[in-house]
């Protein structure tokens, strides 16, 4: 059976190119498809162990893009930025871990640091993708 698909090159590039960088879209490669996105504000406390749980009901561990910022560190307001906190990334302004739990395939668990205090408040935004981070 022939293998059909779509190729869309960047301006000035030819569809005969074998370099994926020359394409805006090439169906040979899987496109990340957004299953769910959203955001909000979360208060991390000792009582909740800094854990925020977001449901997706996909039944597998999806690829996740998670962005968050520690707003309780005095960085609120129009000039505040959304930070790309990843793990404890040597950032004194909060940290978080995104956990795709192997025993819970319908939720993503995100652990946030308490920033040395009793509470810490984070704004967050996430993308969950239909795509698994697995060879399948």
């Amino acid at each position: 059976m022939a293998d059909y698909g779509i190729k869309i090159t960047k301006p000035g590039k030819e569809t005969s190119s074998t370099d994926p960088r020359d394409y805006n879209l090439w169906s040979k490669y899987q496109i990340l498809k957004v299953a769910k996105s959203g955001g909000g504000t979360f208060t991390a406390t000792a009582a909740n162990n800094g854990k925020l749980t977001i449901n997706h009901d996909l039944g597998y561990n999806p690829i996740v893009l998670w962005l968050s910022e520690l707003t309780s560190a005095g960085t609120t307001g129009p000039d505040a930025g959304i930070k790309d906190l990843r793990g404890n990334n040597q950032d004194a302004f909060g940290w978080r871990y995104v956990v795709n739990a192997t025993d819970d395939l319908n939720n993503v668990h995100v652990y946030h640091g308490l920033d040395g205090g009793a509470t810490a408040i984070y704004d967050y935004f996430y993308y969950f993708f239909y795509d698994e981070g697995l060879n399948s």
Partner: protein
Amino acid sequence: MGDYGIKISKSGEDVMTTEDKNLVYSSGFDTMKLFERKSGTSVGGANVTLSHPLNYKAAYMAYRKPSGQFYYQYCAVRGEMKATEVVFSNLNAGDEISCLIFYNPANVGITDYTKVKTGDYGVKASQSNEDVFTAAENKLSMSSQYSTLQIRNIYEQLGPASDGTITINHNYGYIPAFLAEIETTIGGRTGYVQMPRADEVGFGAALLECRSRLNDIKIVSYGGGGVPGLDASSDMTRIILFTEALE
């Protein structure tokens, strides 16, 4: 009016019946639409500020190339996305930043994306029930005017052991953007955790990081004490390489 669209399945999958995860593309879903890749170099350790015209906090993926090195890492990048710029701090002199900025927002309440690219050409597919002729960028599933984030390959590998390194050769001839995860335990919960992986408490150096280079990608473990919750004999690392280059 009917609800038209495009679906492309993976090779060997029936496009009419396969699960969503087996579709290479469907216009029924939103995708990560790349507005632009921007880069900058820290002068004397100063912040790197990259401007953008989107007028909202946009989703982004940022990487640092330490001064004098040949790899990009996910670690120790303190990015701060604002409405018209993204600012990187905590840098050393000569550090380079490569940042993928998407049309997709990174905060709630964005109803329509700013239309910053013009021109009447190419292919567009809107999301379900949206008029493709009038839909703003956030209501499109794809447009030939910009790149969509695509997976080139996914690698899974055991380990690495404490203070060890694993190297995966991809031979792309360019440095690809990536996401990386490690199977480990945090807060009593076992699963795949995005790298970098560090101590869970407080504020310290990363113990595990992923480095993207011209023809390979490395997972590096260091710190002497090992990586919390990691059993290198059974826990997997997972690296997702994108078609998008970092330089």
